[in-house]
């Protein structure tokens, strides 16, 4: 159920766009203009709303998870990146986390061998995760050439690197192959590994299938069912300049690609995909371990009922005197 249903959902969404634009051309306006604008709006406002909701809750305590030596005596080497005490060091830690998935790099595999527990390095998830996220970013950035009249040099350079091997025509992008491989691996491990399958929900499969669908439709569009590229650019420029046009003859596969992307944008703020924003707000990673150096303030701190020394002495005065302990009141 949790695997099949999301799969059917994604296939259904693709078919919806495909059938929609093939049977009735006036629906192109719906898929080509209304849905994209709505999706971008939901994404932007939804994303902001979620982040603001998190930010509204205070961070009452300084609770970093420290993964290295604290700052202490001057002759003991302080691990600045894993146990930061300054903002700069925290930024360093966060960059490692966000750009190269430092914590996931540490991952271990735990196994029982002949009654002994052994721990081996486990880098596959890290590698697939990193490949997936970076190629996603590259491909996303590459698409901006559709939104510029003159393609900026940086984008051209990215394209150049991506199609370095110069295979076929149009040039084959390496990132296309990598993202397909990475997403397939991520789906495969969810189905194949018993522990991961046990913990997975439908909402873990849905975005993976969705992204797979986006990548596949994009690749089909580029290499097989070729679309009218000038028309696509005209369409994209129309959207960003807020004067949408629907050029004729782009090809139905384009609308499938676009509709799946819009679905992803709409789904994004309501889902676990928000880890993209949340990772920056995680108190165990984005705080400095300086709580003994600087007082951290809890905005909702309130006085509590305590058992005072006076009450304690009242309870034990005779026993204290007998034991020779000083007391406040005789």
């Amino acid at each position, binding site marked *: 159920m949790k695997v099949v*249903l999301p799969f059917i959902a994604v296939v259904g969404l693709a078919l919806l766009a495909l059938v929609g634009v093939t049977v009735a051309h006036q629906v192109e306006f719906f898929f080509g203009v209304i849905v994209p604008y709505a999706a971008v709006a939901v994404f932007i406002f939804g994303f902001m709303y*979620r982040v603001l*909701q*998190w930010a509204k809750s205070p*961070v*009452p*305590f300084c609770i970093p*998870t*420290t993964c*290295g*030596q*604290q700052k202490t*005596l001057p*002759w*003991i*080497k302080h691990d600045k990146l*894993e146990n930061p005490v300054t903002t700069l060091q925290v930024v360093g830690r966060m960059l490692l*986390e966000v750009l190269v998935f430092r*914590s*996931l790099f540490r991952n*271990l595999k735990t196994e029982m061998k002949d009654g*002994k527990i052994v721990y081996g390095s486990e880098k596959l*998830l890290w590698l697939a995760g990193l490949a997936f996220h970076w190629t996603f970013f590259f491909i996303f950035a590459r698409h901006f050439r559709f939104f510029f009249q003159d393609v900026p040099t940086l984008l051209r350079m990215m394209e150049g690197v991506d199609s370095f091997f110069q295979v076929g025509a149009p040039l084959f992008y390496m990132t296309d192959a990598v993202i397909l491989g990475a997403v397939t691996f991520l789906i495969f491990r969810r189905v194949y590994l*018993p*522990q*991961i399958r*046990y*913990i*997975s*929900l*439908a*909402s*873990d499969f849905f975005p993976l299938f969705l992204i797979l669908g986006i990548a596949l439709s994009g690749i089909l569009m580029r290499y097989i069912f070729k679309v009218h590229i000038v028309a696509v650019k005209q369409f994209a420029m129309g959207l960003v300049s807020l004067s949408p046009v629907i050029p004729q003859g782009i090809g139905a596969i384009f609308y499938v690609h676009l509709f799946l992307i819009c679905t992803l944008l709409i789904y994004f703020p*309501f*889902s*676990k995909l*928000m*880890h993209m924003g*949340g990772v920056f*707000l*995680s*108190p*165990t*990673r984005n705080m400095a371990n300086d*709580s*003994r*150096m*600087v*007082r*951290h303030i809890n905005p909702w701190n309130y006085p*509590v*009922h*305590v*058992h*005072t*020394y006076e009450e*304690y002495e009242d309870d*034990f005065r005779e026993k*204290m005197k007998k034991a020779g302990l*000083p007391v406040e009141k005789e």
Partner: protein
Amino acid sequence: MAKLPTPEELLKIHYNPPQDENWMDKPAELKQGNICWGAKGKNLKIVEFPNARDWSPVEEDWKLPQDWEGTVLEAMADRLSKYRSFKIFMDICVRCGACADKCHFFIGGGDPKNMPVLRAELMRSVYRKYFTNSGKYLGKLAGARELDLGVLKEWWYYFYQCTECRRCSVFCPYGIDTAEITMMAREFTNLLGLNTDWISGPVANCYMKGNHLGLEPHAIMNSVEGMVDDIETITGIRINPSFNRKGAEILFVTPSGDLFADPGTFTAMGYMMLFHELGLDYTWSTYASEGGNFGLFTSNEMAKRLNSKIYAEAKRLGVKYIIGGECGHMWRVLNQYMDTWNGPADFMEVPKSPITGTVFDNAASTKMIHVTEFTADLIKNGKLKLDPTRNDDLVVTYHDSCNTARGMGLLEEPRYIINNVCNKFHEMPDNTIRERTFCCGSGTGLNASENMELRMRGGLPRANAVKHVTEKYGVNTLANICAIDRATLSASMDYWVPGTRVAGVHELVANAMIMTGEKERETNLRGEPLPGKGGNE
């Protein structure tokens, strides 16, 4: 009481969960040997906790208050608005599974709900049902479920099988800390009077008497007196520690476990011998006679109430700063919570060692330093006369306490000390030390006797690594800086790696330290002949 299976029986662990079931449909079975007795009404009453009554987790009826569901959901809404950590950790888990095999209870038991991700999902599923739209409308498909008695019992069972050690957090790409989620779950269960006897008893004791063990002032003095006698027997030196003394320069606070039973008492003797040798102007307090804080295993508020005594006593006695003893979660509290709860400690001064002149800027605000920071500084500055050969019968390894390692980063100080007071030291494998260290299996108030199976399962990863160095290097001593470790690792070593002793770092220091005017030492602090002094080679 459930019979404890043999190590061979416990080692039959299956890590692969059954594939034909959905965990949401499988209610928790509260297994004897894995649960602690319920909190007693009288202890809950002492600290004014709700629904104070005697109850038993193995009985069907948990004597819950009216509308307990409403109480929990209201508390959940409140904590979501008060703790960003809780809110974020409810929302951003992608269930990548990196944490799945990192929990000592999962490694030692194989129960899938002990995978940190699933432990958190026990809470998240309820969160989704009541606090997210997808959960409200899509229900189980979105991983949401209603809060009912079965879920509450499951919470109680599994959140009192988490020692808040934070090992999973180290591997999580978002730093999701199950300890934060467990702490919330325990806050909720405490609103219904559902804690364990082994936690609520120490909390009530600590509140009224100043320490978990409920030692009254004269009992503390007696205990210390006994240790002073032992020290005199061993060294020929009579030391004279002071209590509740106004005007002392330093207040010393340590977990009460150190005053109560072996091997903690040897560590306490170690502190006293060291401070005497230095001529330190310090005092103990009978009122603030606990460094640990079992309140942390009930609610934020209770933890703050118990912790308040340390600063209050420092102020009353007029000390300049505080030194804290060897303890695990005590240092999580002192490092990450104390100043926020009960500060500012502006009536004290930034700690400065009177022996070496070192200023501890890293404690500029809390005014509290760890005894291993203090001692490492002494050794570095050559202020101690040490004879490490006195520890030559010990082949030592070091266990990082979860809290000092992952909540503070106190990694090198104890190692530096051990390397200076012992000649034979070997690290356990890299994946089991420092921030990757394993819990003793009995932290967060799980060190009872009725849940021995759970404790031995949870202690397996630690013990397994000790066994490795025992076989490889002949290690026979597990040094550590935590009172709970000293109490609980002893049991776990006896079970998994018999013949391995558990010792505090300052026990090893005191063994090696040559005191001014001491007699020729024949024995170590445990009364065993020193190497070369009685055929113990």
